[in-house]
């Protein structure tokens, strides 16, 4: 046995024992170590089997029910999907019907698929199975035209999606199609719009187009994934023809990692903040030793590799990811660099928080988390120094740590490959997040100069807009349910499809809350969902983004609900508090607004009620309140 396999077998047994001991984070770290080293079938099977044996309920994993529907034998993905989901803290429950059963499973309302009641349904169909005209019969169809084949497919697909939606609220994740590995017309294929590759490209465009009108339908870019790895490596023709298992075993982990990106996004686990080391991470060399002119950053290797890395990080900033620095350096040197190095793509203003000191990096991360009001489990730490990485992993096991490889040209892939920051929406709030945090800083500064709290509220000149949920505000609203942890009374997570379903029911009162203040437009920062049940209005969801906590917006939201309740002759407004580790700021919401406690369960969930119209929550005087109807009327 080699040293390496000795090491691995030690890690294997540590992994197994940490699982049995219920140490989730350690097991996740060791599992990652194993799979980074060897993502082969043997270890995947081992990990998946250990997970089956483990006391998963005690590990505090997030359960997720996933159905895998396919035109081929996708059974072989089981172990790797379970293993990679676990690395993200997800307890995967899988349903895999026999292959080529996807049509029947979706069309039969009594199918095993619907009985399973999945959270996510993956539809992995190879193009050649669904559109043989384009993949196999291409030369025959070339004279007859492809229009009817394409129209047939799109009709069939849309009706399938409709049938699915009528039976199931799960997220539907559909693979798009990979162009044929060998085009029938060879080099001529790309000279015509009806070449095979172009047809498949057009097909994928149509699929993406369907997402717009089908909330909860998402496309997995399977074509892009296969392209990244190369179709010749991706497919195993031998296993395809022998066992209907077309995907090469070495590639299954990559498919699992792609799906895991969606799982994390749907569970609200997308990372929000990237904390970076400086020396040998953002540039080559050590600033304190090599000096401003000695570090490697510029058009020549390796300086250009660091530039490429900075550019990728800048993209993350533009996507709304908060950036931080945790560096052991002299603060003055770093200040000088940000002020004076003309090749730096990342500027001081791109960083929401910067910790430059000689203390442990875990301390810096904790300070950044506190400053930005972000949970450590939403942070990613990147460093080239394995010792720093180990220190952070040990002290803050909930932080995702990326230890950079020695070669800077590998940094971009290393940080991007698992899509840790990927979400399924890109709202105007995301685009402006950096700016929004600056606004919040200014507001905090104002708070410290204002005398009384009322004075501070007055000075903020807030305008709060209540609007019914619309197709346009749906993605942001779903995102808020998935991401809001602190001011959230029930912490119920919803997909777009689930919210879209509620929009169709008149007894649901779904309200998005936008806040404008003197520092700018905060966009949609709150959401309430309540349901009229006989003479009661029951609050299901009541949440506020942490950006606007502590400004009385919650009082305005309750006042709005009271008014709506009265208009529909409800006699009571009720709500629940489901305590979590995070939602301390929301726990006294009902109590401090005069609700009476009705009951309390063993788990600590409390039920509160306000008698109407005897007791009403008053609209705070210091904010201007608008309803969506008024906004529309003004336009």
């Amino acid at each position: 046995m080699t040293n390496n396999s000795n090491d691995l077998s030690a890690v294997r047994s540590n992994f197994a024992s940490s699982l049995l001991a219920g140490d989730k984070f350690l097991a996740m770290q060791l599992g990652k170590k194993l799979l980074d080293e060897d993502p082969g079938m043997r270890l995947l099977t081992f990990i998946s089997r250990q997970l089956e044996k483990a006391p998963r309920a005690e590990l505090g994993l997030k359960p997720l029910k996933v159905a895998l529907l396919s035109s081929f034998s996708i059974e072989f993905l089981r172990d790797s999907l379970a293993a990679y989901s676990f690395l993200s803290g997800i307890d995967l429950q899988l349903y895999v019907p026999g292959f080529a059963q996807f049509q029947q499973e979706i069309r039969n309302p009594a199918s095993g698929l619907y009985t399973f009641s999945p959270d996510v349904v993956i539809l992995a169909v190879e193009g050649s199975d669904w559109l043989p005209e384009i993949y196999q019969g291409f030369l025959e169809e070339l004279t007859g035209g492809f229009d009817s084949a394409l129209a047939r497919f799109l009709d069939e697909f849309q009706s399938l999606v409709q049938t699915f939606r009528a039976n199931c609220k799960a997220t539907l994740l559909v693979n798009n199609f990979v162009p044929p590995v060998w085009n029938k017309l060879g080099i001529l294929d790309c000279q015509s719009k009806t070449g095979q590759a172009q047809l498949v490209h057009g097909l994928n465009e149509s699929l993406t187009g369907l997402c717009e009108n089908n909330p909860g339908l998402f496309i997995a870019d399977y074509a892009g994934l296969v392209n990244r790895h190369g179709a010749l490596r991706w497919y195993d023709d031998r296993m395809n023809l022998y066992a209907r298992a077309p995907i090469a075993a070495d590639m299954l982990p990559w498919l699992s990692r792609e799906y895991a990106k969606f799982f994390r996004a749907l569970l609200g686990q997308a990372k929000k903040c990237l904390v970076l080391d400086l020396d040998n991470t953002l540039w080559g060399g050590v600033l304190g030793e090599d000096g401003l002119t000695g570090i490697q950053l510029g058009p020549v290797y390796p300086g250009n590799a660091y530039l490429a890395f900075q550019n990728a990080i800048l993209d993350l900033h533009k996507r709304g990811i908060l950036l931080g620095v945790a560096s052991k350096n002299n603060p003055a040197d770093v200040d000088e660099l940000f002020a004076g190095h003309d090749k730096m793509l990342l500027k001081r203003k791109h960083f929401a928080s910067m910790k430059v000191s000689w203390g442990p990096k875990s301390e810096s991360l904790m300070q950044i988390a506190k400053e930005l009001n972000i949970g450590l489990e939403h942070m990613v730490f990147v460093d080239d120094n394995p010792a720093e990485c180990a220190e952070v992993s040990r002290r803050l096991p909930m932080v995702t740590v990326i230890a950079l490889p020695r070669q800077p040209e590998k940094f971009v892939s290393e940080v991007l490959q698992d899509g840790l920051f990927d979400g399924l929406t890109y709202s105007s709030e995301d685009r402006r997040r950096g700016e929004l945090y600056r606004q919040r800083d200014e507001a905090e500064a104002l708070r410290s100069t204002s005398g009384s709290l009322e004075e501070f509220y007055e000075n903020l000149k807030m305008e709060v807009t209540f609007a019914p949920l619309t197709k346009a505000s749906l993605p942001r609203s779903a995102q808020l349910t998935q991401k809001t942890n602190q001011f959230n009374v029930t912490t119920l997570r919803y997909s777009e499809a689930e919210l879209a379903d509620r929009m169709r029911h008149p007894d649901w009162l779904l309200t998005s809350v936008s806040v404008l203040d003197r520092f700018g437009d905060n966009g949609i920062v709150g959401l309430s969902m309540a349901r009229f049940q006989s003479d009661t209005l029951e609050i299901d969801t009541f949440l506020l983004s942490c950006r606007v906590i502590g400004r009385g917006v919650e009082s305005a939201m309750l006042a709005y609900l009271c008014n709506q309740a009265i208009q529909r002759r409800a006699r009571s407004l009720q709500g629940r508090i489901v305590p979590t580790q995070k939602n301390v700021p929301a726990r006294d919401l009902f109590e401090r607004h005069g609700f009476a406690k009705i009951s309390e369960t063993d788990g600590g969930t409390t039920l509160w009620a306000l008698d109407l119209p005897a007791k009403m929550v008053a609209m705070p005087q210091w904010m201007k309140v608008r309803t969506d109807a008024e906004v529309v009327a003004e336009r």
Partner: protein
Amino acid sequence: MEEQVKQLMADILNVDQHSIDGSTSKDTTASWDSLSHINLMVAIEQEFQVSFDVSEIESMLSYSDIVETLERKLQV
């Protein structure tokens, strides 16, 4: 190599490594079905950096067959 094959079979087929011997075959092992057979073949390919033809996959139906085929492959 023989130990390595046994360990690997133990992992994939979920059996005790020490119970594997010359008499272990697909017919005598309940967990060795057609699905786990593919997983086993793939795992051997990955572990030993070899590639099997379909005819080899179809013929490696016992521990002894596997060892024999692997020895032949690794010598070439």
